C-alpha cells in the first residue's frame, strides 16, 4: 500500500498540472525569451531604418561598389584611387591580418624567451626579464605606440641624412627602412622548389625518426637534419644556379628614395608596440605554466639523467603547454584587436581605412561599423577555433 502511494505521487504531479511541469516550463520560458530577443532586434532595426530614412541618410551596401577616390599608403593587394570601397576594405583587412600575424609570431617567440628567462638561475638574466615584464605590462599600449612612433622613429634623420648600412644598400630614415628589392629571374623557380622539397623531406624524416625512437629508443638529430634540408640545401642550389635574382637598389632621387622596398615607420611602430607589449603578458603566462608543473617532474627527469635543456624541452614545456595555451589564445585575440590602435600612428589597418576614411567619405556609419564588427568577431572566432584545436592536440592524454 505505502509503496503504491509513493509511486503514484511521484508521477502524478506532472500530469496534475502542466503549469508545474519542469520540462514544459523550460520550453515555454525559452520560447518567450527567444521571442523577446527577436522583437528587440526587430524593433531596433526597423527603428534605425525608419530614422535613417527620415533623416535622409543613405542606407544599404551599394556604396561598396563606388569608386573610393583616395589613396592608401600601404597595400598588400593591388589598389589605386580608382578602386572601389570594397577593395579599400580588403586593403584594410589584409593590413590588419598582416600586422597581427607578424605581431603574434614575434610576441610568441619573445614571450617564451622572457618567460623562461624569468625563471633563470642567473640573477642578471632573471632581473632583466622581470624589469621588462613589469615595465611593458604596466604602460598603456597607446602610449607605447606613440613612444615608438614619435620618440624613436620620428627622431631618425631625414632622407638626405639617412643611416646607411650594408655597403649603402639599406637605408634607415624617418620615412622608413629602405631595402633592395629582389626580382626573380629564370631559374628562381628551381630555388623555390628546393625549399619545398626540403620541407617535405624533413617532415618525412621527422615521422620516421619518431617512429624509430618509439620502437627502439634511439634518438635521431631531427632538428639539425631538418635545418640542413630546409636552409642548407636551397642555399647550395642558389649558388649553383648563380643567384637567379637581380637586386633593385634604392636610390636617393628628388624628395626620397626611389626603387627598393620600404618598411614604413607606421608599420614598424605598430609592430614593435604590439609585439613587445603582448610578449610581456605571454612571458607571465609561460612562467605560470612552467611553475604549474610539479617540481617532482624535474627531479624525476634529472634522476633519469636528462640534462636541464632536455628536461625543459621534453618534460616541462609539454606539460606546461596545456596550462599555457588557453590564456595564450586570449593574448592572440587581444593583439589582433589592439591592432586597431593603428589609427594613432597612421598605419592603414581596417579601422583606420574602413571605419575611419570610408565611413567618413560615404557617411554610412551604420553599415561600415557593422561590417567592421563582423570582421573582428570572425577573426577572433577563427583564432580561437584554431587554438582550441591545437589545445586538444597537446592536451595531456591520460593512459
Amino acid at each position, binding site marked *: 500500500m505505502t509503496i503504491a502511494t509513493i509511486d503514484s505521487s511521484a508521477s502524478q504531479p506532472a500530469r496534475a498540472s502542466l503549469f508545474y511541469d519542469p520540462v514544459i516550463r523550460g520550453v515555454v520560458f525559452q520560447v518567450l525569451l527567444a521571442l523577446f530577443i527577436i522583437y528587440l532586434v526587430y524593433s531596433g532595426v526597423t527603428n534605425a531604418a525608419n*530614422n535613417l530614412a527620415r533623416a535622409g541618410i543613405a542606407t544599404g551596401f551599394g556604396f561598396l561598389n563606388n569608386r573610393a577616390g583616395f589613396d592608401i599608403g600601404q597595400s598588400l593587394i593591388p589598389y589605386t584611387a580608382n578602386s572601389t570601397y570594397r577593395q579599400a576594405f580588403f586593403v584594410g583587412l589584409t593590413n590588419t591580418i598582416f600586422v597581427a600575424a607578424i605581431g603574434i609570431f614575434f610576441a610568441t617567440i619573445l614571450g617564451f624567451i622572457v618567460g623562461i628567462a624569468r625563471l633563470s638561475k642567473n640573477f642578471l638574466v632573471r632581473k632583466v626579464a622581470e624589469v621588462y615584464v613589469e615595465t611593458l605590462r604596466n604602460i598603456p599600449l597607446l602610449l607605447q605606440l606613440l613612444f615608438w612612433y*614619435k620618440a624613436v622613429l*620620428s627622431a631618425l634623420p631625414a632622407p638626405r641624412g639617412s643611416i646607411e648600412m650594408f655597403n649603402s644598400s639599406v637605408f634607415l630614415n624617418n*620615412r622608413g627602412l629602405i631595402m633592395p628589392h629582389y626580382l626573380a629571374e629564370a631559374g628562381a623557380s628551381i630555388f623555390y622548389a628546393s625549399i619545398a622539397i626540403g620541407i617535405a623531406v624533413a617532415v618525412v624524416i621527422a615521422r620516421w625518426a619518431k617512429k624509430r625512437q618509439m620502437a627502439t629508443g634511439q634518438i635521431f638529430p631531427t632538428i639539425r637534419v631538418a635545418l640542413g634540408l630546409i636552409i642548407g640545401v636551397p642555399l647550395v642550389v642558389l649558388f649553383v644556379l648563380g643567384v637567379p635574382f637581380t637586386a633593385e637598389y634604392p636610390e636617393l632621387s628628388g*624628395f626620397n628614395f626611389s626603387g627598393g622596398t620600404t618598411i614604413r615607420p*607606421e608599420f614598424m611602430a605598430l609592430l614593435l608596440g604590439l609585439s613587445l607589449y603582448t610578449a610581456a603578458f605571454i612571458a607571465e603566462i609561460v612562467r605560470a605554466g612552467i611553475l604549474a608543473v610539479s617540481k617532482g617532474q624535474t627531479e624525476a627527469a634529472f634522476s633519469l639523467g636528462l640534462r636541464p635543456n632536455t628536461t625543459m624541452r621534453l618534460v616541462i614545456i609539454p606539460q606546461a603547454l596545456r596550462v599555457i595555451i588557453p590564456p595564450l589564445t586570449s593574448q592572440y585575440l587581444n593583439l589582433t584587436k589592439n591592432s586597431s590602435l593603428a589609427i594613432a600612428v*597612421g598605419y592603414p589597418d581596417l579601422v583606420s581605412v574602413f571605419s575611419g576614411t570610408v*565611413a567618413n*567619405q560615404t557617411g554610412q556609419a551604420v553599415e561600415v561599423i557593422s561590417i567592421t564588427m563582423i570582421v573582428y568577431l570572425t577573426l577572433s572566432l577563427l583564432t580561437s577555433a584554431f587554438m582550441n584545436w591545437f589545445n586538444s592536440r597537446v592536451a595531456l592524454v591520460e593512459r
Partner: protein
Amino acid sequence: MTKIILSAVAGAAALTLGAHAASAQTLEAVKAKGYIQCGVSTGLAGFSNTDDAGEWTGLDVDFCRAMAAAIFDDPAAVRFSPLSAVERFTALQSGEIDVLSRNTTWTMSRDTALGLNFVGVTFYDGQGFMVPAELNVDSALQLSGASVCVQSGTTTELNLTDYFSANNMEYNPVVFEGLEEVNAAYNAGRCDVYTTDSSGLYAIRLTLDNPDDHVVLPELISKEPLGPAVRRGDDQWFGIAKWVYYGLVYAEELGISSENLEEMLASENPDVRRALGGDGTFGADMGLENDWLVKIVRHVGNYGEVFERNVGADSPLQIERGLNALYTDGGLQYGMPIR
C-alpha cells in the same frame, strides 16, 4: 529587406542612432536644456581654438555664439564638442550636437546623402600645399614623389588624389585621423608636404617650431566652401541657423556693427528697422524674438567684425577678405534680404 537584415548587425549602435535622429524639435530641446551643443574642430587657430583662459574662440565658434545670442541673448550659452574629421557627421546625425560648425566643406554628397543641411558659406577657401622652404619648391607641380601628410576622411584627401593623378605625379600618403597627429608628423619631417585648406595651412604654420622655414605654395587645387550644417528633418532649426548666418552678413551690408548698434536702433531706414525688429515679426516667425539680430550684433558683431577679429587683419593669421568680402566689394558674401 536584405538592407534591413544586414543593418540588424549594427544592433545597439543603430538603436541609439535612431533614438536621437528622430527628435525634430531641436529649438525646444535647446531651450529646455538652456544651451546649444556645438561641434567644432579639435583646435585650429582662427576657426575654433581655446585661448589662454580656456575659452573657445574663432570664426566657427562665433557662429555658434551668434546662434546662442539670438536664442538666449547670451553668447556663452554654448557647449563645445571638439570633433575629429571622422567623428563630425556621426555626431550631428546621432543628435550628440545641435549644430556642426567645424570648417566643413559643403559638397553635394554631404548635402544629399548624409542627412545634413548646409546652412551657408561662412568662409570661402581652397586647398593648398605647404612645404619646408629648404626644399626649394615653388610650385605644386614639382611635388612628384613627395610624401604628403593629410587628415583622413576629408575632401582634402580626395582632392589630393585627383590633383596628383590629373598631373601624372606620384606621392606617398601619410594619413592620420587627428589634426594634432598630422601637425606633429609634418613638424617631425615624416612628410615633405602638408596639404589642407589654405586658411588651415596659415593657421598651422603659426604653430610650427619655425614658421618662417615653411612656405605655402601658390596653387589652390579646389573650391572649399566651408560652412556650418544642421541635421535634416527640422526645418525650423535649419531656418534659424541659416538666418543667423544671413543676419551676420546683412548687418555688415547695412553698416550695423557692435560699435554703432545703439544709433542704428534709432534709425529711420526701413531696411535697418526690419532687420533690427523695429518693423514686422521676422524674428517671431522663425520662433525667436523680433530683436534676434540686435542680440547677435550686440554680443558677437557683424560678419566683418567676426572675420577681422578671428582670421583677418586683427588676428595673427592676417588672411585677406578676398572671396569673403561682401558682394558689394567684389566678394561672394551676400545676405538674403530681410523683408
